[in-house]
């Protein structure tokens, strides 16, 4: 399980995360919510190892990984679907998926069919360059790519952004399915409230780099949270 | 005007002014030659390089056009001036031909090629100093920018341009003296080039040109047009969708910058006494980029400082460590990139800020 404790993060001189804490457990979805620019993405990046934290701990099954390089975290089960998708534009869809194989032992380097079953459109586009796909197609590819690494912690930064309704539903059920498998901790950053509410087991609401409310789904009152998200 | 001269620029111009006044005085006989006289021309040369660096920074730092061929514009300006100086020699050449320069005489040229006409007049030469490089930049840029050549592709074709010009000017048939170039100048505007007063005049002219170049560059970049340039540098596509004719803007700064480089070349030639196709060499143009990068790209003053520092280092080191200086210079380049990400100017400014912060802390401590 992931246990983020009192993380501080700076861009140059400006502090964007102030003592942020968060937990994520296998088989559970933790939703991170907050208005634009409150630091959600920054938090995600700190967890994945893209940004160095100034202080605080990121415990992964008891080990502090806060100083580990990103690839080492990935090889220990972290996978990310970043905001903005970050598809490798000049790799084909297949190659994009294959990049995730770096985490796996040589013998297991295969793209699992189950991933493609989740997003059938990718099957048709296997040999197209990732950068040529439409925005929504890229988003699906990004999720699929993360799943190829067989993660034990899946971090999704606004995965519904730009996705057509029917596929949002599919993604929702995919996340639910992954959650229900029970071996994966999921962190979901979402602005789309209904989507988050349906999936989340617990919530974290952020504002100006701080966690202003956190708790289990049952404890949360929708109108309160909506209030917090309003400007 | 106030907006044009910010603090940084003010300090720099003041420094330049002091240098311009003090150096000729210190080197004059009246002052007992506190410093050797040759420093006047030497520093004059640095000033020309600094102007050249400012010209490059204008296109590279503010519009993202990395020209690896700016040496060509410098050299063309230099050749235009060199041609004037050659014509000034008149019948004082070794063969005594009243019209033809010596290199044409012994290779049996019968008459002056058409493109040499007019260069016996200073005003014409002065015009060509800016017009020749400006025109080349305009034509080259017209095609390249219209075709949306950008990034490394543009850089490499500018390099191809200067390389092609170098090979062309090497050819004796071109009528520019081949590899030997143009040399053995005697006087400019009737003034003896070896006279200390002429040297001082050229030095001052270089300083004025540098100050002028800086002001023009500053004026362009601080204007509303400057913002478009930055937009083009950062997101060219986006700027187009806002309705800006990107190619016109690029063409404009590219041409202005080329003309500025031409002026630098023209002032450089009488001070060093030779112009030769080597000035077109791709390595020379890369060196200009190095100056700008070292001084701090996109700062104008940094570019000028970078040129000054690198060429000064070259002067000092080639005399002091003739067999090791490349190690020192190469090491300097590496260290600056690794440790001074903002270039020399950036480092100076952070240094000053820290110092100020430190000083104010101290004063506070004292106060409390």
């Amino acid at each position: 399980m992931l246990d983020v404790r009192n993380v501080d993060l700076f861009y140059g001189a400006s502090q964007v995360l102030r003592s942020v804490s968060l937990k994520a457990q296998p088989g559970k979805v933790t939703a991170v919510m907050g208005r634009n620019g409150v630091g959600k993405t920054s938090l995600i990046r700190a967890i994945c190892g893209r940004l160095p934290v100034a202080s605080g701990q990121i415990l992964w099954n008891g080990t502090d990984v806060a100083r580990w390089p990103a690839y080492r975290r990935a090889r220990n089960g972290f996978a990310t679907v970043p905001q903005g998708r970050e598809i490798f534009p000049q790799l084909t869809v297949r190659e994009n998926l294959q990049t995730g194989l770096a985490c796996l032992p040589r013998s297991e380097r295969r793209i699992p069919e189950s991933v493609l079953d989740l997003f059938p459109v990718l099957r048709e586009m296997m040999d197209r360059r990732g950068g040529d796909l439409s925005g929504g197609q890229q988003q699906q590819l990004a999720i699929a790519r993360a799943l190829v690494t067989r993660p034990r912690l899946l971090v999704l930064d606004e995965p519904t952004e730009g996705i057509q309704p029917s596929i949002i539903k599919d993604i929702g059920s995919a996340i639910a399915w992954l959650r229900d498998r029970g071996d994966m901790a999921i962190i979901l950053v979402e602005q789309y409230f209904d989507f988050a509410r349906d999936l989340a087991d617990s919530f974290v609401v952020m504002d100006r780099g701080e966690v202003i409310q956190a708790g289990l789904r049952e404890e949360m009152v929708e109108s309160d949270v909506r209030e917090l998200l309003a400007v | 005007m106030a907006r044009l001269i910010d603090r940084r620029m003010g300090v720099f111009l003041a420094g330049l002014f002091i240098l311009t006044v003090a150096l000729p005085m210190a080197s004059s006989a009246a002052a007992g030659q506190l410093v050797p006289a040759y420093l006047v021309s030497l520093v004059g040369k640095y000033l020309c390089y600094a102007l050249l660096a400012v010209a490059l920074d204008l296109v590279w730092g503010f519009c993202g056009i990395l020209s690896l061929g700016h040496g060509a514009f410098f050299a063309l300006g230099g050749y235009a001036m060199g041609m004037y100086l050659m014509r000034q020699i008149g019948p004082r050449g070794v063969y005594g031909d009243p019209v033809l320069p010596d290199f044409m005489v012994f290779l049996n040229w019968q008459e002056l090629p058409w493109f040499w006409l007019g260069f016996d007049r200073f005003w014409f030469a002065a015009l060509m100093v800016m017009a020749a490089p400006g025109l080349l930049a305009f034509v080259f840029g017209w095609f390249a920018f219209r075709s949306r050549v950008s990034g490394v592709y543009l850089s490499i074709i500018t390099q191809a341009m200067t390389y092609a010009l170098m090979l062309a000017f090497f050819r004796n048939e071109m009528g520019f003296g081949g590899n030997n170039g143009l040399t053995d100048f005697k006087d400019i505007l009737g003034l003896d080039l070896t006279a200390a007063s002429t040297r001082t005049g050229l030095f001052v002219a270089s300083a004025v040109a540098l100050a002028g170049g800086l002001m023009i560059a500053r004026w362009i970049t601080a204007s509303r047009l400057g913002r478009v340039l930055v937009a083009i540098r950062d997101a060219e596509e986006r700027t187009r969708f806002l309705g800006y004719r990107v190619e016109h803007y690029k063409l404009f700064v590219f041409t202005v910058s080329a003309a500025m480089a031409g002026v630098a070349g023209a002032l450089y030639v009488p001070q060093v006494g030779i112009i030769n196709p080597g000035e077109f060499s791709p390595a020379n143009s890369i060196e200009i980029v190095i100056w700008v990068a070292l001084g701090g790209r996109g700062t104008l003053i940094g570019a000028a400082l970078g040129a000054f520092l690198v060429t000064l280092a070259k002067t000092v080191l080639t005399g002091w460590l003739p067999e090791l200086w490349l190690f020192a210079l190469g090491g300097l380049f590496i260290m600056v990139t690794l440790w001074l990400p903002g270039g020399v100017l950036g480092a100076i400014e952070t240094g000053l800020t820290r110092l100020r912060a430190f000083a104010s802390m101290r004063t506070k401590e004292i106060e409390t």
Partner: protein
Amino acid sequence: MKIVLCLPFRPYLAALLMALLVVLPAAGRTAGFEELVERLPHGSYADRAKVIDAISRTGDPRAAEVLNALLEGRLHARKDDGRIVILVDSAGGATAIDALSGENLGGVLAGSTEKIKTNNRLRGMLRTAIGALSLMSPDRETRLMAAQSVFASGDPANIEALDAALAAESDRQVATALAEARAVAILDTDAPVEEKRAAVAILRARGDAAAQAALAPHASDPAIGNEVREALSRIEQAQRVWAIAQNVWYGLSLGSVLMLAAIGLAITFGVMGVINMAHGELVMLGAYTTFAVQEAIRGAAPWLFDWSLLIAAPLAVLVAGSVGIAIERGIVRHLYGRPLETLLATWGVSLILQQAVRTIFGPNNREVGNPSWMSGAFEIGQMTVTWSRLWILIFALAVFFALLLVLRRSFFGLQMRAVTQNRPMAAEMGIDTGRIDALTFGLGAGIAGLAGVALSQIDNVSPNLGQSYIVDSFMVVVFGGAGNLWGAFAGAFGLGITNKLLEPWTGAVLGKILMLVFIILFIQKRPRGLFALRGRAAEA
């Protein structure tokens, strides 16, 4: 304005004059083989020419060997007794054989004998003379060479010998060569018209520049002029076609050199986006590695010389590759995302590497020899193909396709492309970006080193080697379209062939200028190179 000062006290001039006075009268009368050989060391080159001529006419069976030794610079005169000896290499120095008696005189000390000097004219004469004398040699190669040198002399005096040789010849190729040599000779005699016509036909069939030169003087011969002119125009036509083929070959070969020089850059610059100004110096390191290997071999194991390049190649990859990795780990690594600053830093590296090589190996050219399989040339029709160029072409293609395979088919290649397209994302996919970056840069550098091994065979090995290729390399990569290996391929061969087709028209200087102008214009048409990525992917 020329004043010639005569300074008669120059000692050896005087000695030469004395020798002339002694020898000259002797050359006049007919003399025996032995006497002629004894006379060889003395007199001027002109005298020696007469002596050689006389020796070749003696018909003495020893003549060919003596003349051959003279040609090869192995004929010496002993300083103490003036005896003429032939030096042969033997273990631990040279052994002297008496030129006349064939007696083995044992080892000789260096400096105890004096070489009998020849000049170009004498060597030409010697070759012809030896040719005429060895037309009947039992060795096929020797006979072939002999026939060729007799062809070159075109001397009618050899016709008899040629006839005899032809009658005895069983090898077809040698027989043709003999017939051709005879044909040239016949044209200069007053043989019957029919025979001359046959000779013209033989030369026409040969069809090369030498045949042309042999025929040309007879173009206005009243008897066979028509045939000769006809033959000449045929030969010319054929040669025009061959000339195009030849130029295309030159283009391919220039292209292979350009590609080798550029292909490492296609990785560091094209794929990784690092403006690596030190690329040329990495090529240079490869060349110096070759030099060092050859130097070691010369000193320790000369028999390995033919293998020197094969030994040097992996070492060059190692040397240049390690330096590349060091550059990446030490400098470039800190500059990803600041691509233009890599230009400044790698320029610094290139200055340092250049000066380091200058300090270690000296500023001069170093000698790198061609192994025997890289020397010389062979002919395809009227086209000359030099072995070194052919091997370099093969080598370049091999490197190219191997690299293509690595990039396209291997997992390393995939990771490498992922890392260069989006470094942080690649890391989040579990790719050790630091390692991949270092290896990629090392690969590019290692290939630059390989290029150096090849270039050492045809160019200077000097501290300036790198500088002379860097500009061309960037042109090639950009012309083809950065980021695409096929681009470098097409760029190199496209530019190579265009250049070589232009050169005969315009000359080398203008050709190169036109080439550059062509690149500039071409980029207007295709602003992202020949093999540009298209579509959204390119903009992303």
